[in-house]
């Protein structure tokens, strides 16, 4: 039963029902089982009426009659079970394929695209949207078929037993149908609102879990509780409104059915007395009326399922129909490590994050980027990495535009140490050797350089220790050193550091920096940092402020020519007295 990914969903099917065409074999099997099973089901009251009539006429009831009856019930059992299995397979298979297709789509996305689609939305696509489609396939489709079969079948049988009485009774169908139509029209928005409220208090719960420390520091539990309570109460009120409607509608349906059975009794009873109807048919009539009610109610529910599923399906389609992003670059040569940035601008919304930034750095030299909070330093690194495309301007490696490089080839030569520590739920070895191109000797060199050796020795399982999701068992500094080791393990030509020593103590930082100089003498380094002291001896320092490059040069030059730089130096002066 191993699922093989089906070919991509054809783009033409914009309606969810198109999915049924895609899995036509299973849809047909499902439809077949449903139609036959439900049709057979309609014969059950018929059997009883035959039995009663045969008896009333004084005919002997044979064993064959009962055996046929039992066979019928067994047949219904098998077909209903098949229906269940088919609908499970159909829905799970379709869900599997959609997930696979979305995952394919995501894994082909650029970072910029993922950010613009937003991770939260993709997460919804992959979870609740797929669930909604699944509910339609597993329940909705078969329910529509069985409801139609039962309504049409039972109505036909009623007409055939006695058309006059049937017409009287069948007037209840449109009444119930209309009622449901109106109720669901009103219920739709209520359900939506209720879902929004649930999302709302889930957000409060999330925040009070993630922010649990600050809530305790401020003792603001009550404040959070008030936020939660408002949402909780609103959800209860919406639930009550839904309830009010339901508690009117459902008894009404029962009452309508009861009235129908009264009509049957009063009118049908008359027919039986006048001899134009048998007792058996009279009994069957009663049963069919009750059989008829249920599918009408179900159709009402299904219409709701369908509209929800269709909305979800449209959202899924939107993602699947995104144009495939082609890998533009093909250049695969080894780089020396010259980096040139020419007139790079980046705009987020209305905010200019980078404004015409240009600089050059030769291979095997070291450059630092210094600047206040929110100067655009991290974004600059992302542009250098090709994770974010600049609005205008270009980045060159060895004189060739970044765009022309095959990303695959480039990413095994450029490494970025991200500011936030991300650890995967796997062993330390796999976390450090995360890139597939990493060799074992690279890993040990990286560990040694990042000063992780001592720490790994203290672990009973050493490098094979499994790191938990957010790396909760590790200190901030340990995590950041693992991130550094992961980058160094690529044995890169260019190393981009994003404030990586912010959580590493000075002694360790120094050792690590000198380790890098010693172990990776040919590396080009671009380091975003807050501490001038650590980068004083770098070949070049650029100063970034509000997205603009306002000064560049060596430490000595900048300290003479740039007042902003001097100010930063001044702010760090007290430190330096102690660190020499």
């Amino acid at each position, binding site marked *: 039963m191993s699922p093989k990914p089906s070919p991509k969903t054809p783009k033409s099917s914009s309606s969810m029902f198109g999915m049924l065409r895609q899995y036509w074999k299973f849809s047909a099997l499902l439809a077949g089982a449903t139609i036959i099973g439900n049709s057979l089901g309609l014969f059950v009251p018929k059997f009883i009426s035959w039995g*009663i009539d045969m*008896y009333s006429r004084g005919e002997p009831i044979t064993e064959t009659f009962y055996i046929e009856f039992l066979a019928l*019930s067994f047949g219904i*059992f098998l077909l*209903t079970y098949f229906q*269940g*299995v088919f*609908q*499970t397979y159909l829905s799970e*298979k379709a869900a*599997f394929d959609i997930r696979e297709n979305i995952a394919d789509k995501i894994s082909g996305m650029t970072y910029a695209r*993922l950010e613009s689609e*937003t991770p*939260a939305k993709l997460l919804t696509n992959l*979870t609740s949207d797929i669930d909604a489609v699944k509910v339609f396939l597993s329940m909705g489709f078969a329910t529509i078929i069985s409801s139609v079969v039962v309504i049409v079948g039972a109505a036909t049988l009623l007409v055939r037993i006695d058309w006059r009485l049937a017409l009287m009774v069948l007037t209840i169908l449109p009444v119930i149908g209309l009622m449901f139509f109106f109720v669901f029209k009103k219920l739709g928005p209520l359900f939506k609102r209720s879902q929004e409220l*649930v999302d709302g208090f889930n957000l*409060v*719960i999330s925040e*009070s*879990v993630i922010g649990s*420390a600050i809530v305790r*520091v401020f*003792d603001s*539990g009550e404040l959070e509780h008030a936020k939660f309570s408002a949402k*909780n109460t609103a959800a209860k009120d919406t*639930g009550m409104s839904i309830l*009010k409607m339901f508690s009117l509608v459902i*008894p009404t349906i029962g*009452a309508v059915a009861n*009235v129908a059975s*009264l009509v049957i009794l009063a009118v049908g009873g008359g027919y039986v*007395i006048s001899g134009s109807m048998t007792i058996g048919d009279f*009994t069957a009539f*009663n049963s069919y009326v009750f059989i008829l009610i249920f599918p009408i109610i179900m159709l009402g529910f299904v219409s709701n399922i369908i509209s929800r599923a269709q909305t979800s399906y449209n959202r899924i389609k939107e993602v699947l129909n995104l144009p495939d992003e082609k890998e533009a670059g093909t250049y695969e040569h080894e780089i020396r490590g010259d980096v040139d940035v020419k007139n790079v601008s980046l705009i987020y919304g209305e905010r200019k994050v980078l404004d015409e930034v240009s600089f050059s750095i030769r291979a095997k030299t070291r450059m630092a980027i210094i600047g*206040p909070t929110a100067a655009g330093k991290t974004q600059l690194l992302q542009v250098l990495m090709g*994770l974010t495309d600049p609005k205008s301007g270009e980045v060159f490696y060895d004189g060739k535009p970044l765009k022309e490089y095959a*990303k695959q080839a480039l*990413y*095994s030569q450029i*490494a970025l140490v991200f*500011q936030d520590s991300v650890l995967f*739920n796997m062993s330390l070895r796999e976390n450090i050797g*995360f*890139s*597939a*191109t990493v060799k074992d000797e690279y890993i040990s060199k990286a560990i040694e350089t990042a000063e992780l050796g001592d720490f790994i020795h203290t672990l009973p399982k050493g490098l094979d220790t499994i790191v938990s*999701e957010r790396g909760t068992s*590790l*200190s*901030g*500094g340990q995590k950041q050193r693992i991130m550094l080791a992961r980058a160094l393990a690529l044995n890169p030509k260019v190393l981009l550091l994003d404030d990586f020593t*912010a*959580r590493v*103590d000075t002694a360790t930082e*120094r050792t690590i920096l000198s380790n890098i100089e010693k172990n990776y003498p040919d590396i080009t380094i671009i380091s975003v940092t*807050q*501490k001038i002291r650590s980068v004083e001896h770098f070949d070049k320092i650029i100063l970034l402020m509000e997205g603009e490059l306002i000064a560049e040069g060596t430490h000595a030059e900048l300290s003479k020519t740039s007042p902003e730089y001097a100010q930063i130096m001044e*702010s760090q002066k*007290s430190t330096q007295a*102690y660190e020499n």
Partner: protein
Amino acid sequence: MTTTYSLQDQKDTEPKGSALSAFRKMLPLLKKEKKGIIIAGIAILANSVFNLLGPLGIGYTIDHYVIPHDYPGVLMAAGVLLAIFAAAYVSNYVQMRVMGGVAQRVLWDLRNSLFVKLQELPLAFFNQNKAGDLISRINRDTERVNEFFSQGLMRFVGNIFLIIGAGIFILFINWKLGAAALAPGLILFLFARLVSGWIGRVNKKSLTASGLLSGEIQESIANFKIILAFNRRDYFKKRFGTANETNFKAAFRAGVANELFTPVFEWMGNVALVIVLSFGLYLIASGDFAIGLLVSFVIYVTRFYDPLREMARLWATLQTALAAWDRIGIILAFKSDLVLIPADSAETKRDGKGLIEFRDVSFSYPEGKEVLRSANFVFEKGKTYAFVGPTGGGKTTSASLLARLYDPTSGTVYLEGRDIRSYTHAERTKKIGFILQEPFLFSGTVKDNLFYGLDEYKGHSDADIAAVLEKFGFTSLVGRFERGMNTPITSSSTLSLGEKQIIAFMRAVLREPDLLILDEATANIDTVTEKVLEDIIQKLPKDTTRVIIAHRLNTIAAADDIFFVNNTEVKEAGSMEHAVEMLLHGKRQS
């Protein structure tokens, strides 16, 4: 003593045994609703009786009026039935309305007590459980209970009454035929007992698989840039593919098991009909039974087996709801280990020194890692202290003990001479401010975050607020944000780490604590802005005590006293030079 709050350690308690024992667990929450439940119970009972009287009336009419050809009698009977149906309608409405109301209120109560409990539990609870796990667990579990309560419960209770009522009527009309008609029900009971273990197992596997799948999705999407930068799109696809396939298999297996119930129940219902027909006709032939009653009987058998079938369908929802209830119960049963001790007890009278004092404080994490051993120090009013030391050395833990985010394993922390445990949370947090290493902002605006929980500023006009900001020297800091005070903060806003730290800093200072702890509070802020923040700290009232943890030495240059925290010890470093010496040459323990 450190308490274990890990939910992993709690065995996943599957609801075993009868539904009765599970319902008993719900009792405490249902108690408040006694009145509603009684009214609903009466309505349900009445409704069942009225509903069940209908078929009996029809059978009676056939035997006594239709077969004897008494048409006026038929009409009269129809009139009586109309009255019964009207009563059924009213009772059904009351039952749904009242019971539904009870369900909604219980649900509200459950969510509420869970949230209150979350606020009451100490930080240890959150540190010992993964945030992602905790959130999805709470959200999913309350949703499951919600599903059952708002939809399943009423039908469930109503069906139980219908089944019991139909059973009684069947046996009452003719006990021999009744017993025969109910026999397939016994088979169903045995069948359910037989397969429920298997069904529970496959469903549990399926739930686990889908949990792993969503975890995988979440992790991969969140870390997409790393996956890109290290060329590991294949990693994402492989991990995802495996999880997807496991989930598919588990879900399909669960489906095959779950789908078995409905057909089997339907089948047995039909078998019961065959029995009623054959045995009933035989009884009529032998003069023990009437044809009209047989018609009623057929209806009752349907009224017995149809709700039974629906119960089978609802059973799975009930099981998951009970399991969810159980899991919520585990959280509700946790007690905070940060108890309030009486302020005048003998222990608290022992006067501590300074503003805050550590006396023989030791601390170990539940998994056994010892962080502090018998630490002693005193912090005086109005002075500045610094904790330095290697990463993982225990600085943050010491600071957390100062703020009573944890209690020491042994020893005592004194706040203004009194055991810190004798202060209420409100009293203590008013005195102690703590800027955490990881800045966390609530969704809302910059203003919402700055004045978070500060009631005294509630209702201040914009001009008043501006004056407050000016007083604290925050005006230029706030001005950095795109729309100043009104800059929205959402989960997707693009504030940098440094910007978040600035807000967290202002938020803590605005509260004017007696003791302000800064734990790497400015690590990602540039040094010029840091200088601005430093000036603000200098301008705090002269009685304010500051405790600073930082890697950047300039941040701690102004400290009156420096403590070196490492290797379970908190040592006074004396001078800055000595501290630097220790930092540079001390053996790292991380």
